[in-house]
């Protein structure tokens, strides 16, 4: 568990805040300049065909609703580079994400955070410093073991810490879902 925290820290140290301009599913352009106007940024790493990721969409939307009023900006990031744009558009529309879904064809954001799984969430400061990478909550303990309701809300806790200017706690367990296929 500490391994990916360390890796994430290393990635930030090596590359610093990412410079990017990425289009979302509706064709709008987004750049890192948007982050500076926020009080914090959440990146949800997702794919169109991972059932665990899809199952989390309602909770992703609820968290966005709760924290957007406090200035946090939310993005979904399609972590797979081979999904056709038409599939991404259809998926985004069907699931009703309330925030932009970014296409990341060169995995700039995947590499910046070192996300390994979908769904996985990253919390970043407006200056582009990665503060948290990990599970959204503990509802899915493993692929075959789900809780009826989450009892730990790791991402919400991390956001409270980031907004208070404190270092967030590490996630209480590894993210569970579908591994991200890293491209060279």
């Amino acid at each position, binding site marked *: 568990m500490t391994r990916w925290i360390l890796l994430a820290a290393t990635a930030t140290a090596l590359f610093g805040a990412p410079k990017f301009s990425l289009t979302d599913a509706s064709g709008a352009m987004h750049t890192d300049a948007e982050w500076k106007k926020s009080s914090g940024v959440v990146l949800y790493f997702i794919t169109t065909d991972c*059932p665990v990721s899809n199952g989390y*969409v309602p909770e992703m939307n609820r968290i966005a609703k709760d924290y957007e009023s406090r200035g946090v900006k939310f993005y979904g990031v399609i972590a797979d580079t081979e999904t056709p744009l038409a599939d991404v558009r259809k998926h985004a529309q069907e*699931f009703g994400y309330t925030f932009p879904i970014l296409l990341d064809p060169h995995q700039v954001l995947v590499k910046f955070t070192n996300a390994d799984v979908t769904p996985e969430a990253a919390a970043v400061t407006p200056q582009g410093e990665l503060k948290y990478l990990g599970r959204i909550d503990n509802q899915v303990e493993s692929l*075959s073991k*789900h*809780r009826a309701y989450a009892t730990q809300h790791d991402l919400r806790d991390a956001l409270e810490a980031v907004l208070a200017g404190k270092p967030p706690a590490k996630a209480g367990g590894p993210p569970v879902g*579908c591994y991200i*296929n890293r491209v060279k």
Partner: protein
Amino acid sequence: MKWFAVLLGCAASAGAVPTFNKDIAPILYENCAACHRPGQVAPFSLLTYQDAARRAKLIASVTEKRYMPPWKAEPGPHFLNERRLSDDQIALIRDWAAQGAPEGDAADKPAAPSFPGGWEAGEPDKIFTMPSKFAVPADGPDQFRCFVIPMNLDHDVFVKAFEFRPGNRRVVHHAVLFMDMNGASRRLAGDSGSYACFAGPGFVPLGILGGWAPGSSPEVQHDGISIPVRKGTSLVLQLHYHPDGKPETDESSMGLTFGEPPNTALSLVIVNSRGINIAPGDSDYVVKTGVTLPQDVEVLGVTPHAHYLCKDMKVDARLPDGTVESLIRIKDWDFNWQGQYRYAEPVKLPKGTRVEMEYTYDNSANNPRNPANPPVRVRFGEQTTDEMGLAFLAVALTPGADARAFQQALILEYVDQFLAQGENIADIPPEIPPAQRTALVMAETLFDKDHDGKLDEDERKSLIDFLRSRMQ
């Protein structure tokens, strides 16, 4: 880059690097493609190299954990539809993923499997569809729903094959088809045509016509066997829905094929432990019980059942000569993957065989499936927060056997067991309907000679002897 190729070459001489075309495609086609192909129940297809290679790490991980293919039974008796990878196959996938998921030589690639469209078991005699579409919310707890479907038969029929067609493959997790003869299900459903039902169908069913889980094939009965269905029967389709992140609707259907009457009687043997009472925090609560077979039988299939706390299941047959045969073993019971396990060949068990059940439960906070947080005391019952410990054995009697005598002998054994397990009248589970509860209380009162509120062994024997004398 060349030195890397040389290294790979060395590895190859020690044990060839697995490739998709030569090693992986045959495993995927045989074990995964039935669901992992376009339009089927799985979330993605695994037919092409591109499909598989970009998910190599995921495939290696889920096969290593034996999460996929979904098959919970341990090696032992052979079942129909068994989808279990060997340790060697799992190692091949692991090595293939670790070596960068190479495609290999096109000449090695097997032909993609073909799946005929339409009904797999042939055109059915009658198709039954849910009375209306059911709406599944985007998230929240799984839904368990019973749909009442009148058969409107004008004569008795004998079901030879059952094929279920999920209407919405994204949310239908599993299905069980019960039979109702006395209208109990229609009363439960009211005008809506369906009702919430978590464990059983909420009434004592006349029987089970079949089941479905992802990857299962149509249920076609062995030669000489068919399931009698009487005129007036209603089908009760229990569906387990797993929300998928967006609102969905489902309208599932099923096809039945009819045939000749069976040449032998079918029956159900129920091994049931009602005496479940698990203290909060107990991570190893063991339940043991058994039923002795009053006649020779052939076991066609076994349906183990428990709720979220059960972790380990063992059902064995102890033969009169003392030998023990495993009927099923599940080391990581998962309520979400329950279903009937049908034997590839019926298992012959002689009269006097004891079917023994041993289930283990984890009611600690460390069990993520525990519906209560913090854990609470859990007793026998049909609700999500209760537990059960059951094994249903579908059996065929020998041709010409007295089916009525077989059932009567079993019922006496069930009553005896219940009385032995329930220490006193206050322990009769609330799930027992009021009429039966009254009858039991009256019988207990009549036979409780020393008036201590419970039946000791002698008193129980008198009651059973009395019941037996009334059954002639």
